[in-house]
């Protein structure tokens, strides 16, 4: 009984059936990928485990094939592992097959690495970092990233030739690693990989004139002491905003369209006021009542660099698996030709 079970686990026919079933499932399922971008377009932007939990599970009618193919792939991986173990048990007489079985081991390692990375990894795709600022990494509590400097290398026309980021990875205030991130030269650190995506500039506020003051910068966090003695604080800024019918203010785009500021105003005496000021509309009455006027001059831009920050704990194992596969496949070729030369192909 046990012997039969072992034979099934090492069965070559089972491997062919599993591979055929996976092939057919993926052939059919993959044709849905281009037509359902909202579901499948996110697969590269998140770790597979997160995608399954957050997206795939609520669209089972279009993603069931993925679960099934994944399950069969795990079975094929186990099948391959058992074949490898079976070979190890007889290595004394079958050492000439080292290449073939190194290749099989490589397949198993890559599969384990992928599952590990899918379950324990995370991805931040195209995250925007303001130059010089420290930005926390949402998926890695206590850790943050700072772009110390950024330099794009432009081509005459078309996309930039390179984007050179000097990046520091921090844990609290402590520097963990510092390095360069460029096109095709990521920063690698214990499963973390940081690659450049794009860069740009974003409006973060306006230069403005207020009564009896030199020009000021209306930016988030600014507190402006007014000539009248009151205090004006900028809480939020949206370069292009829209007011919905229910009064909710929503973000529209990053371009200057209908700029809006959320302001808090503390008059010298009396109650404070907080609300939205749309630059294309008159100043709210409560502010005008205190003699406040705002004349916007020009937008203030800040540069940002957009990076992908992914963590894949299985990446090293996948690299080892690839190494095994590469050496294995070359050795397998060698042993194939040696066998041909010796004319010892039993099945012909």
């Amino acid at each position, binding site marked *: 009984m046990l012997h039969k079970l072992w034979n099934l686990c090492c069965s070559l026919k089972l491997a062919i059936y599993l*591979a*055929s079933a996976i092939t057919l499932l993926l052939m059919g399922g993959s044709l849905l990928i*281009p037509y359902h971008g909202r579901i499948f377009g996110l697969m*590269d932007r998140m770790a597979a485990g997160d995608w399954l939990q957050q997206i795939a599970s609520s669209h089972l009618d279009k993603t069931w094939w993925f679960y099934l193919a994944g399950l069969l792939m795990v079975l094929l991986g186990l099948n391959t592992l058992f074949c490898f173990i079976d070979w190890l048990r007889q290595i004394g007489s079958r050492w000439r097959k080292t290449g073939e079985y190194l290749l099989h081991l490589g397949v198993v390692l890559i599969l384990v690495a*992928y599952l590990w990375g899918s379950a324990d990894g995370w991805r931040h795709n195209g995250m925007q970092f303001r130059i010089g600022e420290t930005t926390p990494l949402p998926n890695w509590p206590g850790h943050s990233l700072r772009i110390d400097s950024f330099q794009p290398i432009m081509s005459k026309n078309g996309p930039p030739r390179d984007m050179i980021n000097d990046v520091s990875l921090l844990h609290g205030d402590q520097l963990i690693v510092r390095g360069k991130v460029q096109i095709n030269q990521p920063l690698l650190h214990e499963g973390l990989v940081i690659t450049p995506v794009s860069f740009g500039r974003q409006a973060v506020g306006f230069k403005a004139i207020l009564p009896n003051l030199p020009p000021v910068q209306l930016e988030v966090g600014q507190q402006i002491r007014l000539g009248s003695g009151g205090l004006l604080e900028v809480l939020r800024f949206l370069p292009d905003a829209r007011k919905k019918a229910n009064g909710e203010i929503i973000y529209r785009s990053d371009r200057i369209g209908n700029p809006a500021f959320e302001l808090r105003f503390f008059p010298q005496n009396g109650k404070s006021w907080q609300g939205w000021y749309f630059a294309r509309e008159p100043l709210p009455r409560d502010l005008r009542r205190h003699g406040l006027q705002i004349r916007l001059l020009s937008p203030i831009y800040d540069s940002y660099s957009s990076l992908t920050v*992914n963590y*894949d704990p299985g990446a090293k194992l996948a690299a080892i698996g690839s190494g095994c596969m590469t050496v294995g496949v070359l050795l397998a070729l060698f042993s194939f030709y040696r066998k041909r030369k010796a004319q010892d192909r039993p*099945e012909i």
Partner: protein
Amino acid sequence: MTNIHLLQAATLTYALAVVGYLLLIVLKQRWLQIAAQTCIVSGFIMQSACLIWRWKLAGFLPVTNLFSTLFFFSWALAACYLYFELRYRIAASGLFVMFLNLCLLSVALNRDSALPTLVSALDTPFFSLHIVFSLLGYAFFAMAFSLGVLYIFQRYLPTQQLPSLSTLRKLNEESILLGFALFTLCLVVGGIWAYWAWGYYFSWNIKGVWSFLVWLFYAGMCHAKFVRRWQGTGYALLSIIGFGVVLFTYLGIGLLLESNHPLE
């Protein structure tokens, strides 16, 4: 003379070789075989010179648009044919491959042959190797397709002009294994490149999935030859189906569907 004139001349000699082999089947004259072989060798030399010329002009191995990959695929097919011809003297058995080669070149010659500018993300030896290994792998899969068709031909309409069934089968198995080995290297190198460029080594776009399927299919074929029932005709049929999968992955996806491996 431009490099494209050289390619046109190579195409012409390949076409002459195909005619030579067709006549060989009818007239059975040995000199026709020698003439056809000479045509293929000289066509291959001209195409290789053209490839090196374009490589020098571009400053990088030009394999980044449809013209260049069709060109390289055709060069790889000719190289693959020469390997089998010089090693096993397969003669007219390579007819399909050379015919396929002519099809590729005629599509390529009708497209814009201007050298593409290189997008920075592709400016790495890993990308070039990824494409080179993949097209070399495809070339061996095409050879296996050709040998599979001939196997079925020989099985049901036997002729003295073709090698024996067991030789065709052995050559087919060798093609599959060589193609599989090259395609494995293509996936390994591609994975390293993707990890460095995008931060993940496998992309869930349709081209990525189908490349994995090509690999899995031919891995399956590497085993099917050990199963007695699949030997012979079954294996030949699988070689034909497999090449259909290859063609869809290489051309079909780019032409019919969207992917992050555009053809142009």
